[in-house]
């Protein structure tokens, strides 16, 4: 399966240039940093910070993994990047700022709708709509008002190919997305996210609801996607972090303990907590 996918991948790669030429300031292009987190504190309820003084940078075209025990704030930080935390009324950043492509995303002038078009998200529990496979992938374009059949057709095919799902579903695009297997459904969700051509894809434990074989497929997909997208992935699975990521950030109790090259984090961590965690002494 994997070889088939990688062959498709070569045929249909979107050149990086077309992805990023549309907007963004030139100094950001040059600096290669797409997400800057600058001394951020975050609280769900006023006065109780669950993230404290987080500073980090996420580089273009890399897979960055967030690891750490449950409740350490890694998913919370991820959901700050596309402002999904806005759904919780009292949740707010209490200090610092997050800049994506050079812009403070919590600035009043930032339209959260536009932000989310640039920063896509894949969820822990695969959640395709109870629509056809085609309509699932076309959803993002339809809400942007794209109605032209040829554009939709092309985007659906391109996105499904990128997600490595095209060969499996091309004969039944009108079938319900819920009829697919778990792994296929998650890849359909990834295709749906790709279809709106974001620059960054956030993945919140994308494999935790999948069986080992589906997990392998999705992990291979992630390593292929990093040619076109910057990916931030939250994972509970440390082996997964070593397999897919270039850089890894370790969170513990709301603090960013350490962030470095994945190989360095797992082979030669500089902090004691990191070593304890990756060697399985807690968490």
């Amino acid at each position, binding site marked *: 399966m994997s070889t088939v996918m990688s062959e498709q991948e070569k045929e249909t790669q979107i050149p990086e240039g077309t992805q990023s030429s549309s907007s963004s300031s030139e100094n950001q292009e040059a600096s290669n940093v797409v997400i800057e987190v600058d001394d951020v504190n975050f609280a769900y309820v006023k006065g109780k910070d669950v993230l404290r003084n987080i500073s980090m940078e996420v580089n273009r075209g890399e897979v960055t993994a967030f690891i750490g025990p449950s409740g350490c704030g890694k998913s919370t930080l991820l959901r700050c990047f596309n402002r999904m935390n806005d*759904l919780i009324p009292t949740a707010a950043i209490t200090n610092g700022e997050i800049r994506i492509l050079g812009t403070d995303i919590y600035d009043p002038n930032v339209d959260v709708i536009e932000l989310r078009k640039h920063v896509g998200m894949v969820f822990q529990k695969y959640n395709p709509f109870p629509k056809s496979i085609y309509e699932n992938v076309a959803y993002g374009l339809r809400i942007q008002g794209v109605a032209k059949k040829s554009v939709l057709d092309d985007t659906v095919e391109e996105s499904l190919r990128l997600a490595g799902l095209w060969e499996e579903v091309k004969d039944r695009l009108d079938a319900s997305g819920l009829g697919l297997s778990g792994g296929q459904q998650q890849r359909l969700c990834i295709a749906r996210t790709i279809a709106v051509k974001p620059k960054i894809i956030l993945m919140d434990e994308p494999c935790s609801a999948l069986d080992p074989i589906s997990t392998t497929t999705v992990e291979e997909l992630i390593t292929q996607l990093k040619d076109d997208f910057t990916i931030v992935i939250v994972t509970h699975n440390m082996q997964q972090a070593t397999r897919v990521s270039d850089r890894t950030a370790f969170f513990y109790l709301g603090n960013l303990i350490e962030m470095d090259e994945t190989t360095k984090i797992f082979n030669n961590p500089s902090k004691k907590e990191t070593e304890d965690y990756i060697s399985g002494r807690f968490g």
Partner: protein
Amino acid sequence: MHDLAKDKPVEKSLNPFSTKDFALKRRDGFIRTLLRLATYFILACAGFIFADIIIKGAPVVFESSFPFVNTKFFTESPETLVVFDTADGESHQLDFSDYSQFKRDNPDMKIIEEHTHSYSGGGILGPLVGTALLTLICIVVALFIGLTTSIYLNEYSSKGRFMDMVRLAIMNLAGVPSIVYGLFGLGLFCLVAPVIVDAPNDRALFSFPILPGKYLSFEGWGTCMMAGGFTLAVMILPVIIAACEESLKAIPMGFREASLALGATKWQTISKAVLPYAFPGMLTASILGITRVAGETAPIMFTAALAHKDVLPWEGANSLGGFFSQSVQAMPYHIYTVAARIPQSEYTKPMQYGSVFVFMILVMCFAALSIWMRIHYRKKVKW
């Protein structure tokens, strides 16, 4: 010990499980019988009601010869029934219009022993049409307000004490007696609801000009089907809002998150990723609720219903506004009238039982429809 064992019959002494406490066992049996009888009592009541209505009502509606249905019962409105004997010794039962015709055709016939029975002749077309219209207005108003309110409560409003109080207030409305709704409808919709008029009425609460020569006057809609439909809608709103909220809550949060994460606005998310999947459930529950208000008498007796009306709604109005400003006959009020407000006799019975029979079948059909819809959509919708 040994001797005793030998004296007793062998099988009895060897059975360690024989009954020891007969009183306990009797009590157990008694409780069981009591519970069973209570259940049978309900069954008997329901059975008696249905059997009585079917046995006495079905012959009014159905006939033994083609077309097997008493068409007159469904194509005419209630009329006065005239029972009379003629000089030639024959006994007649005629609706008032037929009776006039009979007198014109036989001017020489001497009529003796004439009795009239109000509302007992003719059919039930007027009440059927009226109930249909009232229910239709109620559905439109209740669904619109119920849907919008439940969407706001469930999707937009922030959780908090104030919203809990709003919800509690809505739920409390469900406990208000129907006669209170009737009076409330009279006070609000019939007497103070706003209308646009050329010249405000003297009894208007207040009025102010909105356009040259036009006034918005709070003088009420009068007794009419609009007032009745709105009153019924207000009465059923708590049920509909609760049902719609349940349907919205059943939609996984994941749909909303996925849609928002793709750059959809709040409304796009609700209209494209939530409502299409919540709508069947909302509709099903609402129809069941509306079936219940269709049978209510108290809310419409002050606001919309008439015991007698010569013309059907579409015969009595020449504009759309005029159409909805008419009073109507309605099935529950008609049944109340023929059952409780006219002198009873054997001649009033067919109309009484026929009306009840038809109305019962109608309401049961609606209930069956909503149950069928629920089963149908439950099979179809999976996530």
